[in-house]
């Protein structure tokens, strides 16, 4: 009797093991696609360039991201990613309510310039109620107020060699061998000069809170959340972003996310 139970149990166990082995094995076998920098992966990633080019072709000059009514703001902007940067430079600025904050515009510009928060606030501003789409899948509608980036770019005048803007930030989401890896992002000049691209200092009618990127967060409304860098201290005009981080154009891009971020 016990022999029969045992063999049946063994049989069941064997069956279950085979089944799970089959399914797990089948899926693990495709895990190599996660290997950053592999040939297959680079091949698959080429589709992201196609997406970028096709969307840029389809976008009329200045095609706007949808804007929403006040009544569609039903909750606060959900903070995520870094919400409380701890770098000493940032903490010092925060303690003084960002009185000493300056946003530096550097790199391939005719004249480098920096702006205090008060100066940014005294420039032309744009307020827009837009939808923030996180790469994870969720969305949140909020009202953003800030200085159009194009106004700043007109003042510093980009050199003809400039092709991208790189945004340098105070926050970090990861530690590297030589200390915290600072968040950074980049965009092309089409997004940089887009009318809805603003250096946001206001959120839902209030001063931009620390959790959402104080004092200045860039809004690039036709792209996903990771393309909206928070805690920005320097905007650098460059001809290539290959020398920053791992060379992919942003913190999350260096982790394997697509640079365009419009899908």
């Amino acid at each position, binding site marked *: 009797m016990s022999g029969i139970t045992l063999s049946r149990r063994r049989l069941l166990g064997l069956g279950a093991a085979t089944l799970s082995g089959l399914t797990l094995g089948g899926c693990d076998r495709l895990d190599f*696609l996660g290997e950053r920098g592999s040939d297959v992966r680079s091949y698959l990633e080429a589709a992201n360039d196609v997406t970028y080019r096709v*969307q840029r072709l389809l976008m009329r000059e200045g095609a706007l991201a949808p804007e929403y009514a006040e009544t569609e703001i039903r*909750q606060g902007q959900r903070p995520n990613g870094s919400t409380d940067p701890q770098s000493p430079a940032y903490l010092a600025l925060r303690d003084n309510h960002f009185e000493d904050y300056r946003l530096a515009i550097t790199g391939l510009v005719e004249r480098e310039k920096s702006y205090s928060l008060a100066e940014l606030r005294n420039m032309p501003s744009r307020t827009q109620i837009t939808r923030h789409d996180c790469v*994870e*899948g969720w969305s949140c509608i909020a009202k953003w107020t800030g200085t159009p980036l194009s106004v700043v770019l007109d003042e510093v005048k980009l050199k003809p060699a400039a092709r991208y803007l790189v945004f340098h930030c105070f926050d970090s989401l990861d530690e590297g061998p030589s200390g915290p890896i600072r968040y950074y992002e980049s965009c092309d000049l089409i997004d940089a000069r887009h009318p809805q691209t603003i250096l946001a200092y206001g959120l839902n009618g209030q001063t931009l809170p620390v959790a959402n990127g104080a004092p200045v967060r860039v809004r690039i409304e036709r792209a996903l959340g990771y393309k909206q860098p928070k805690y920005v201290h320097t905007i650098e005009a460059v001809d290539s972003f290959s020398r920053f981080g791992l060379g992919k154009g942003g913190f999350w891009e260096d982790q394997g996310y697509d640079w365009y971020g419009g899908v």
Partner: protein
Amino acid sequence: MNEIIVKAGRQQGPLIRRQSIWTRVTHWTWAIWLFFLLLSGLQIFNAHPALYIGQESGFAYDNAVLRMDAVDRHGPRGQTTIFGRSFDTTGLFGLSGPADHPRVRGFPAALTIPSYQDLATGRVIHFFFAWLLVATLLVWLCAGLISGHIRRDLVPTGRDLAHLPRDVAAHARLRFHHGRGYNVLQKLSYGAVLFVLLPLMVLTGLAMSPGMDAVWPWLLEVFGGRQTARSIHFLGMTLLVLFFIVHILMVLAAGPINELRSMISGWYRIDPEPGLKPEIKS
């Protein structure tokens, strides 16, 4: 004479050339594309395993229609909530993996590529195969329009529709007629997948792209918001999976060898037509 009939066994109809090379090639490429799209799509879903109705996701209020998460009920349990009703789905949705260290995740490792949580790779795979899916659809559409396949084989005729009740009854009894063309249920289901479901998947996919929402703002209006589009995309996925299951069952029930042969070599053996002598091969 008798001997020959015995040799031929069951009365067999003639072999006919049923599927064109276009149908066969696009059929199998779709099968591969959809396999990768499904498993990478579930990987993407797992990054935020909840679906909502409207433009945004409610965090301060509740507009979720589906949610997979883990709850503590004398130990961790997987829970799936659909339209406010919760189900214990431990081991499948919400919480799965080895019993000694289960993981909090929407769909289990066996259903995602990669098997571990990796949104970036899921996106790379999904968008690569999404382009291939669209390209294959366009190739099929052009070939189908030019060759007349769509008009001839897929658009149901008045006679087809008149036969609908009879056809449903025959399918319910698993009695299949192997004719030259598709029966009306086949026409309707293949037509629904090719002209409704797959385009719907592409369009709801595009509606989730903030870039495409600037290019074609009507996408959001048609689907009632980005988060609704995401939910419809998910619903479309479940309908495609359902179609796949029924499709496989029908192939098995209708004669897998014959059905598979027609989709590989194009040759299909139809039922002997009444009044015709059986084809005899010696």
